[in-house]
């Protein structure tokens, strides 16, 4: 039992929690002090407390990771998320698989951001960090794991297995330590699960910064000044959060077999909404720099983005979504605690806003339709309405709970077809955003009136119509909704491109907005084509049904492939080459029948494994398997003279009783070819062999085995038979039979053994051809040999293949959006530092 490390971890959590509160108090006193010396000494004190806090929090992370890394399975966290065979990079994902670890990740980012803010701010340090430290206290309390007056506060990641579980084993031997953990959920064993959560949580963490600046501004009566330092961080937050969300989508696309990247699941929605609001906040903040109209909305939106993050934390971690989401966490008994924090944050913020409301400036003058503010407002409003449309249905379980509280029995459930439901509304939001972002840019950079507007819009509109018309004809776009999205998206790209060209002539640093808008519009088009025109290509045109028990759809949209048999799919000829594994040190894939798994991670080679003529592993060598649970189905695609193979996978996790199929994707310029296996023969099932057919043959004389030509090449006496102990008086005879396959030859080596005066036969199986060969008798008189052959059904898979056109436009659009954001961040941060060096901020 490693008691020390757990106690250390728990101690560090408490230390981090206490020092966060101390730091918050110090910063608070520093803000409230009127004397300069008091201010400074409280600030120094608070800063030291925050350093202690940061050090302890990082210590907690290190401690928990050590427990996972060393495999201390007496700890519940290590036991339930990790196992001995897990490689280091998946130990990292095991770290944040659980709620406690993901809170730690969030805490960790806040510490780093806190350090950066302490270094980069002068005036704002104390008030901003006071809010930071309070939030850190809140997050740490979620993993405190302390019981006060029968009240559970937080759930500690350092709890021992025997305290977490009520297993009978601990009654008899309290010191029992499981030899192995239960492992990581196979769905999370993917590289995206290593990098996507940190990105997403960095996004979560950064929403705190604009919130903190805004609250600090309201607190100190600096109602306008907070915007300048908050703006670059808001941009940073939006881009990180956006990329995090898309990485999640990409993970789903590559790993899950629902064939898409976005499912409108409540957990996905819960991060999408704050992102929309954050984008709206950024726009009003930018508008404010030019006029004071947008101040109130900037304040409301900036705080809302963070509060929505807290709300989404509540949604996903309180267990309230348990019935409506496929991947939310379940309740750790902390929903009450989360709810209290949520309410506290909301009420505190509301109080500050109401207190300051009267003092906030706003323009009395009516906003003109030709002003830039008008367009930004329209955009921000559409973004907020889009968010509203998503959050209302997503919160249905919450509405039910509230209705029940007031005594109304409510049984509302989320919409049945969530993808269709959300898409029909979000589509219109997308169209409006594209139109506004295209047109609004002209107002932003030029003083506009009616005639100027006509001149500015003429070229983009004409170009748009021409291009859209061409695409509609070329892609046969007929759906009116799609035509709208296509037109709006194209218009946005062209209009912003025109603005971009102008900016390049003047000042390239100002091109961030136009570039991001182009990226967003491209994403819109990518989404439209990849999902709207995704086409199932694996159509069953044989006229046969795979199984009468299948519903028609399955029979029509899936292909049954037998091993080594060609089948036509559209313009491709498909051939299932067999099941493969991957081993360390061997490039490519290894036939599953060329190895025998001997332990969880190791296998022995059953024949020489060659690559480009070089033997990498000889027969009998032990090899380490890469991702041992995963098998790869090699599907060869042939089109004309070009060939490629896809390797969709199945991952069988016996401990968790899970079978996970994942797709493989051939990326082409115009579309992705997405292939996943729906099902394959149960590997545990006994093979059924046909009756043995006996063939009499002689050396080097061809004979037929299940339509394949075979020859008996050699018969020799041997001293070793694998898996058998031979005595001196025993005799073992090995026959070497070559079977000619369509593309390669297979060697089969059946044995005839006389042991203790009894004859025994050891058959050889050529799995790839589905044949079994037995050396049945030897007739020395006639120099003849009797070979028994039997057949089995060949291996098969049922697969689905889908073409997703122009999905690359989505990914390229993402990249362009990021570039635009980076340019904008750079510009806004420079502004901030200039003001800071003047001693103003």
């Amino acid at each position, binding site marked *: 039992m490693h008691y020390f490390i757990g106690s250390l971890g728990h101690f560090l959590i408490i230390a981090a929690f206490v020092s966060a509160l101390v730091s918050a108090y110090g910063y608070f006193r520093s803000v409230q002090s009127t004397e300069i010396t008091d201010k400074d000494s409280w600030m120094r004190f608070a800063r030291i407390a925050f350093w202690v806090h940061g050090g302890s929090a990082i210590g907690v992370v290190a401690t928990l990771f050590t427990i996972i890394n060393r495999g201390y399975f007496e700890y519940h966290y290590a036991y339930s998320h990790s196992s001995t065979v897990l490689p280091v990079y998946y130990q990292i994902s095991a770290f944040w698989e659980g709620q406690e670890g993901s809170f730690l990740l969030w805490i960790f980012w806040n510490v780093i951001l806190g350090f950066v803010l302490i270094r980069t701010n002068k005036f704002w340090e104390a008030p901003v960090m006071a809010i930071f430290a309070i939030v850190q206290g809140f997050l740490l309390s979620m993993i405190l794991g302390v019981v006060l007056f029968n009240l559970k506060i937080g759930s500690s990641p350092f709890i021992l297995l025997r305290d977490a579980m009520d297993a009978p084993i601990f009654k008899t031997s309290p010191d029992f330590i499981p030899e192995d953990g239960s492992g990581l959920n196979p769905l999370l064993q993917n590289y995206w699960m290593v990098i996507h959560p940190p990105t997403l949580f960095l996004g979560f963490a950064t929403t705190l910064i604009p919130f903190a600046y805004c609250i600090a501004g309201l607190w100190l009566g600096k109602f306008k000044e907070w915007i300048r330092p908050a703006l670059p961080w808001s941009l940073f937050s939006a881009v990180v959060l956006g990329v995090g969300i898309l990485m999640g989508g990409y993970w789903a696309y590559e790993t899950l077999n629902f064939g898409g990247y976005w499912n409108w699941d409540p957990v996905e929605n819960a991060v999408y909404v704050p992102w929309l609001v954050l984008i709206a906040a950024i726009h009003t903040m930018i508008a404010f720099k030019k006029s004071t109209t947008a101040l109130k909305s900037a304040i409301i939106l900036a705080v809302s983005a963070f509060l929505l993050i807290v709300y989404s934390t509540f949604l996903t971690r309180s267990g309230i979504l348990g019935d409506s989401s496929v991947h939310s966490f379940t309740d750790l008994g902390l929903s009450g605690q989360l709810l209290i924090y949520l309410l506290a944050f909301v009420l505190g913020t509301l109080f500050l806003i109401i207190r300051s409301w009267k003092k906030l400036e706003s323009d009395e003058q009516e906003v003109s339709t030709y002003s830039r503010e008008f367009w930004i407002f329209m955009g921000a409003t559409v973004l907020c309405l889009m968010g509203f449309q998503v959050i*209302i249905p997503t919160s249905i379980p919450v509405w039910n709970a509230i209705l029940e509280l007031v005594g109304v029995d409510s049984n509302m459930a989320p919409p049945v077809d969530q993808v269709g439901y959300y898409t029909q*509304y979000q589509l219109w939001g997308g169209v409006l955003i594209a139109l506004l972002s295209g047109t609004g840019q002209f107002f932003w950079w030029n003083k506009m009136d009616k005639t100027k507007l006509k001149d500015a819009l003429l070229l983009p509109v004409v170009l748009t119509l021409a291009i859209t018309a061409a695409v509609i004809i070329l892609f046969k776009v007929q759906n009116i909704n799609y035509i709208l999205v296509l037109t709006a998206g194209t218009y946005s790209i062209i209009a912003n491109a025109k603005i971009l060209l102008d900016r390049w002539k003047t000042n390239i640093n100002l091109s961030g907005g136009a570039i991001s808008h182009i990226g967003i519009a491209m994403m819109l088009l990518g989404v439209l084509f990849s999902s709207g025109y995704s086409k199932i290509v694996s159509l069953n045109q044989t006229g046969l049904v795979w199984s009468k*028990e299948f519903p028609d759809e399955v029979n029509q949209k899936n292909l049954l492939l037998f091993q080594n048999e060609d089948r036509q799919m559209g313009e491709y000829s498909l051939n299932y080459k067999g099941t493969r594994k991957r081993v360390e040190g061997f490039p490519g894939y290894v036939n599953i029948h060329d190895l025998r798994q001997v332990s969880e991670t190791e296998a022995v080679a059953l024949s020489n494994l060659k690559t480009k003529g070089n033997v990498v592993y000889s027969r009998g060598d032990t090899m380490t398997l890469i991702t041992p649970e995963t098998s790869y189905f090699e599907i060869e695609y042939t089109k004309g003279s070009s060939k490629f193979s896809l390797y969709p996978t199945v991952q069988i996790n016996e401990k968790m009783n899970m079978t996970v199929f994942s797709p493989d994707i051939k990326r082409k310029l115009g579309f992705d070819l997405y292939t996943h296996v729906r099902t394959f023969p149960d590997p545990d099932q006994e093979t059924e062999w046909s009756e043995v057919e006996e063939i009499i043959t002689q050396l080097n004389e061809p004979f037929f085995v299940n339509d394949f030509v075979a020859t008996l090449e050699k018969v020799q006496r041997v001293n070793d038979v694998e898996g058998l102990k031979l005595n001196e008086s025993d005799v073992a005879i090995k026959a070497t039979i070559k079977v000619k396959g369509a593309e390669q030859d297979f060697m089969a080596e059946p044995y005839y053994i006389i042991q203790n005066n009894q004859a025994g036969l050891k058959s050889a199986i050529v799995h790839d051809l589905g044949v079994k060969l037995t050396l049945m008798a030897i007739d020395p008189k006639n120099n003849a040999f009797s070979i028994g052959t039997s057949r089995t059904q060949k291996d098969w898979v049922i697969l689905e293949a889908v073409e997703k056109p122009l999905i690359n436009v989505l990914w390229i659009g993402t990249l362009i959006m990021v570039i635009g954001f980076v340019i904008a961040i750079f510009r806004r941060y420079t502004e901030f530092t200039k003001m800071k060096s003047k001693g103003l901020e």
Partner: protein
Amino acid sequence: MKKSHIFGIVVIAAAIMVIISTAGDASIYVGFAEAKEMAHEGDSKKIHVVGQLKKDAQGEIVGIQDSPNKLAFSFILVDNNNEEQRVYFNEPMPADFLRSEQVVVVGNFQNDHFLASKILMKCPSKYQEETIEVNDV
């Protein structure tokens, strides 16, 4: 009336539309008895049923039937009113199905068969083990 007021009214109208549409498109949670009744009355709307997999006295899940090629399967769900019903699902069995503590099926009765179009699972703790495997102590 100022333009901003009109704008405000439009926004509020849109928000109210969203709420109405949510209430209108929302599905409901019902038991099998009610679902069957709905189907008999010709209401083919898909609904949610919450329940648990049927287990025998030893706690083993019973009544799961796979189609030969595992492309579809059926199981017995016991709803919250303790009513049992065989549920058909035209997809392979979801990955963590057998581990689930609670199952939500979305679908409707078709010719006295309950056909699910979607299955949601709640595992003992979504990503956490609740049992310990003890090997050779």
